[in-house]
């Protein structure tokens, strides 16, 4: 879609963060995803224009990083960790069960456009394994049933809240704006730390 003037001025403000404008390419790609849902040709052309780069150069960067999508994902993009530790502890079972439950393959999207599924690599929450991310929010200590409930809720427009995150799960596009560095004012919501994070401290204080 065509970009609105206010969106273009946000892009200018992103570029202004950096000493050299080419550095803005990654937040600009996140920003394009917040508008279009994925990296569209129009987005690539506009970024190229803004940064004085050929579209091939922008595409070369975009295709290097797995978070930039070349086709639409669901409103709720579900990433299931299948790196060794999560896989062994149940991630493989969760991944297989959810694909079957939704009738889609890896990188697939449900027909209603609500949910997509991708197996992901280690997401830095191994003490909460098995871990699932939705729109890159934490869903800790998951089971096959909890993730089925999660995707069913998402399809009905009523997903459960992240374990460590805002009170309500935001959409893929909304969270893409956060990744572009545009605040949504939700930083103060949610826990400061989950139980495993606090375990060592509690042992010292004698509370666990």
């Amino acid at each position, binding site marked *: 879609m065509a970009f609105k003037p206010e969106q273009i001025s946000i892009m200018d403000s992103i570029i202004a963060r950096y000493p050299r404008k080419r550095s803005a390419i*990654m937040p600009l790609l996140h920003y394009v995803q917040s508008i279009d849902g994925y990296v569209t040709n129009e987005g690539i052309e506009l970024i190229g224009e803004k940064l004085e780069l050929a579209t091939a150069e922008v595409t070369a960067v975009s295709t290097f990083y797995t978070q930039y999508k070349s086709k639409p994902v669901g409103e709720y993009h579900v990433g299931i960790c299948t790196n060794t530790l999560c896989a062994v*502890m149940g991630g493989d079972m969760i991944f297989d069960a959810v694909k079957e439950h939704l009738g889609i393959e890896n990188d697939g999207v449900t027909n209603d456009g609500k949910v997509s599924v991708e197996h992901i690599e280690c997401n830095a929450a*191994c003490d*909460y394994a098995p871990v699932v991310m939705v729109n890159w929010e934490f869903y800790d200590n998951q*089971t096959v049933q909890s993730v089925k409930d999660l995707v069913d809720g998402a399809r009905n427009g009523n997903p459960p809240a992240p374990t460590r995150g805002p009170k309500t799960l935001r959409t893929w596009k909304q969270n893409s704006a*956060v990744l572009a560095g545009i*605040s949504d004012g939700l930083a103060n919501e949610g826990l400061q730390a989950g*139980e495993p994070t*606090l375990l060592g401290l509690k042992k010292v204080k004698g509370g666990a």
Partner: protein
Amino acid sequence: MSKLTPVLSAHWDEADSFTIAGYKRNGGYSAVAKALAMAPDELIQLVKDSGLRGRGGAGFPTGSKWGFIPQGDNKEHYFVVNADESEPGTCKDTPLMMANPHVLIEGVIIGSYAIRANYAFIYIRGEVTHVVRRVQQAIEDAYAAGLLGKNILGKGFDLELVLHVGAGAYICGEETALLDSLEGFRGQPRLRPPFPAIAGLYAKPTVVNNVESVASVPAIVNNGVAWFNAMGTEKSKGFTLYSLSGHVNNPGQFEAPLGITLRELLEISGGVRSGHKLKFWTPGGSSTPIFTDAHLDVPLDYEGVSAAGSMLGTKALQIFDETTCVVRAVLRWTEFYKHESCGKCTPCREGTWWLVQVLKDLEAGKGTEADLDKLLDLCDNIMGRSFCALADGAASPIISSLKYFRQEYLDHLSAGRCPFDPIASTLFATAGAK
């Protein structure tokens, strides 16, 4: 329980620990006032004297890294935080930034002042939206409090700090790939020398430090070298975060002096999953050669782990019990390295692909004993033959698992399949659905 030493984690149990008010209530930002009253070189010397070593894996002395930045060169200097935590098993910087982003920002201000940088970046992984929110908010609040921007605390020091969000590439945790990524290119490692201290971001002198390293600096400034040196071992000073995960009763973060052992950490935390026994573990993420139950008393400091044949790495202690197939574990890690190889160097790009092919056959009970030697031969042609350490990391689990568990590979061949039941290793097998 006296073995644990919560410093970074000391106030994580307070509900507002991530806010500027919560941080200041516990003495936050007092170190920056102290630091800005010192000469930059004094600060570099202080960090050198403390013996603080990089907590991101390599263990390089932080103060020396700062000291390598040429002074009086009339060039811009840059201070960059590596917050691209992605090494499998590693989960310390992410909860740190979620629970207390301000301690990182305070460390950035001090580090930037010491190396005479007026521009700093935090390069954070892109798959952690809520952590991005917390760090972004913390930066905005620090600006509003006069701790970032022009003339910080009226001391004449200017610093711009930008949060840069990655997009899902493990390789960007390698410092030169991170810099290429931050410059707006594909994240691919550079040939060194020149090192970033001479030609880093935009070819200007640059320090790249791990989150935990930078976050450790305010406490050192406040409490001094003697306090820091009282913790740890002869060459590995101070406290650090150990992350315990996998088949243990209570996974989590444990802040302790360097040199604690896995046996001690298991005793403190509640041990290996009940009814099971330790089979193998990583001392510092998947790129560090695995250990077995013979290594429970290895001191977990840089020298101790190295002497026992592995690396301290990120102190990501991934614990696997006897229900886990080591071949499956190694195959999965190898698939990760193949996926994350940036493709720049042929030995890594092609080699990791072949490693996966051979391991897949072995896990399925196909192939022959000669394939085990082929794996080692491939590793030999990958290790040390690429620009960065990703390739070395790919070889580590293979070589070490063949060293300790060769028979288990052979058991796959004689059975014609994997002899393990994957259900038995899941949490659901014992705990049931939560």
